[in-house]
């Protein structure tokens, strides 16, 4: 009983439901209360105890159905009758070896794909656990674990007998061999089904995790479209982590400024002689960010992830203005808000992506139309390579922006060694930036955004 629950919780955790030990204990108490009899009640109860958000609930329901899979009743029955026919045919040869007879019985008891009687399934599952099938991580390991599980079931004796019979070269021996071979195949099918189920439960989430880890540390420009959904999930998780981290600490104690009213009250018991001092505190502003992204070809992959990041962060960042440019600047806040992210991004890249980059013109338009958005509380987040096709750099505008804003953070897509070469203005802009980070992977981006939020 306990083992079944442990396995279930492990599968849940792998699937992304963060069930803590305390919740596992609650689940055990729930189980004692509700019992296994009413499947639907148990499912609803575990959903309430273990899954703590809407997404977690849907994950939970899927895993529950997979893990506590009910044998398909009608299908199982037809297979059993079929198996009975087989076993009545197979009863005649007495091998005389109890071990082989047992296996034959098992094969007869079970049907084709994963069905079979409860006893048979329990036996196979036990053997699979003994063979360590819970540790399965990749689909290619399936055959290995099937073989090991078959070993555990004691298939060796049957195989030996089979070979002996085949070597005997007599018709009744051949007939018996046929029965043994059939039984072996049927057993293997059942074992394979059991292992496949374990792969779905334990292996697939682990594989998924592994692939995500790889993708997060891959250069952004090289991330293919097939990795995009995975990246989106990973970025969402990172953003959540950042949001949790930075939504705290919104009060700063102002040591030295006495809160007279509170101090008087706190010391009323001492006839208002101020023993305990209460200081005033200041609320910390939530970050205001103006993101200015270069979306020309070479940088577009970075821009995509940065915007994805900022938009998943929206509840930690109250004020977010997003501009993109290649030769002219555009406000894309509305687009990103209105359309699903991929569509919005595709449209942005299509409409504004082409054309030669011109940083100077972008700054000019920013000054012209959006200068009021930038004030002492704003962090300007620049993303780009600083290559401006030999157009005027407009350093004076950049300096003015640095003066207006709280600070400018530049996320550079080029390595420091290449700054200032050719048409790169990086070194010219550099003195006015509070911070310049070189971002290659999504993990770099997370670090950079973390630092930006940290500075508030």
């Amino acid at each position: 009983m306990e083992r079944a629950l442990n396995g279930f919780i492990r599968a849940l955790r792998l699937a992304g439901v963060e069930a803590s030990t305390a919740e596992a204990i609650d689940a055990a108490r729930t189980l004692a209360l509700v019992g296994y009899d009413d499947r639907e009640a148990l499912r609803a109860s575990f959903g309430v105890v273990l899954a703590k958000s809407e997404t977690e609930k849907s994950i939970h329901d899927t895993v529950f159905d997979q893990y506590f899979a009910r044998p398909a009743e009608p299908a199982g029955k037809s297979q059993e009758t079929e198996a009975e026919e087989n076993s009545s045919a197979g009863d005649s040869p007495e091998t005389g070896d109890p071990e082989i007879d047992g296996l034959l019985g098992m094969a007869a008891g079970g049907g084709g794909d994963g069905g079979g009687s409860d006893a048979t399934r329990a036996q196979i599952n036990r053997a699979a656990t003994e063979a360590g099938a819970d540790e399965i991580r990749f689909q290619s390991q399936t055959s290995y674990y099937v073989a090991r599980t078959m070993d555990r079931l004691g298939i060796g004796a049957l195989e030996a007998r089979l070979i002996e019979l085949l070597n005997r070269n007599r018709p009744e021996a051949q007939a018996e061999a046929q029965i043994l071979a059939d039984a072996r195949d049927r057993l293997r099918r059942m074992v394979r089904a059991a292992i496949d189920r374990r792969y779905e439960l334990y292996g697939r989430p682990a594989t998924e995790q592994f692939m995500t880890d790889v993708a997060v540390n891959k250069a952004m420009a090289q991330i293919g479209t097939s990795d995009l959904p995975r990246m989106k999930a990973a970025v969402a998780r990172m953003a959540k982590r950042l949001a949790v981290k930075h939504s705290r600490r919104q009060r700063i104690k102002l040591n030295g400024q006495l809160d007279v009213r509170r101090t008087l009250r706190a010391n009323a018991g001492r006839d208002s002689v101020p023993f305990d001092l209460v200081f005033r505190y200041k609320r910390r502003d939530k970050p205001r960010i103006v993101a200015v992204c270069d979306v020309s070809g070479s940088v577009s992959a970075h821009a995509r992830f940065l915007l994805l990041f900022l938009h998943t962060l929206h509840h930690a960042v109250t004020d977010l203005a997003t501009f993109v440019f290649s030769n002219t600047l555009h406000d894309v806040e509305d687009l990103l808000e209105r359309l699903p992210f991929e569509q919005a991004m595709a449209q942005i890249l299509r409409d504004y992506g082409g054309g030669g980059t011109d940083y100077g013109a972008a700054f000019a338009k920013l000054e012209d139309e959006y200068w009021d958005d930038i004030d002492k509380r704003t962090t300007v987040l620049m993303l780009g390579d600083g290559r401006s096709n030999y157009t005027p750099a407009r350093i004076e505008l950049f300096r003015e922006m640095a003066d207006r804003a709280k600070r400018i953070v530049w996320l550079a897509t080029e390595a420091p060694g290449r700054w200032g070469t050719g048409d790169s203005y990086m070194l010219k802009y550099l003195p006015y930036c509070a911070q310049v980070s070189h971002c290659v992977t999504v993990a770099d981006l997370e670090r950079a955004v973390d630092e930006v939020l940290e500075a508030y």
Partner: protein
Amino acid sequence: MQAITEALSSVGYIATRQISTALYLAHHLRKPVLIEGPAGVGKTELAVSAAQCLGFPLLRLQCYEGLDDAKALYEWKYGKQLLYTQILKDKIGQIISAEDSLKEAFGKLGGFQDVFFSREFLEPRPLLQAMEQPAGSVLLIDEVDKSEEAFEALLLEVLADYQVTVPEIGTIKAQVPPLVILTSNNTRELGDALKRRCLHLHIGFPDARLERDIVRARVPGLSDKLLGQMVAFVQALREENIRKPPSVAEAVDWARTLLLLHAEALDETLVRETLNVLIKRESDVQALEDRMLPLTKSAVDAGGRPV
């Protein structure tokens, strides 16, 4: 669980299996329930109904930004404390005048208990009140997401051990743990520590059958035909691309409106005239302008069929 569902429906609350399971577990595991879901699906109503059918008093704590322990847990009766010190000043001379040395006087003072911070001057707020109910109670902490993180931390002790610690007095433990229900509209993500201590219940929009039962329980006297039509219409409206889909509360209001107007069946003009009960945003009303006729038509058709 069946009993819970029936008890709730006797006070006019139609519960799904999920809801009664959560209440059952909350009662037996002695854990608070955190209810999340869109506005107006009956999160608060559940607590009210539960209190009603258990016969417990309902203590409600509405959360808002700036809520602190003085308003949620307890407060010292400041005025009385001040008066007390005044009296003390006058009396203190009398009390110690009999003693000769400073040491003896001090010893006598020590003999008096420290009344300044005592139960007499403690003003219990909802959380402490709930702990002090001798027969048990239902504590509703409404819209906990509107409060700050600091308040969440404050709740942890109350929710995990059902006790309140007042530094000057000690720990006050509940004799009968209250049934705690927290609601959240998900305006911000709640902390993991809080979530871990609670059972989590998500109430979404009900399906057509359930919604019919709810509206029937809340607004008796509506004809079956109209009921079917209006529920079908509301359900279809939720599928439309609008910013604020109508909730159950709004469906119930609409049912009342229709009853008041003695409507027999839905038609386009009727829907148009009463739409402001269902849809609360001007932009949504405009977005639905063209969809009115087909929506009404299909709702009238669907309403005829039994669900």
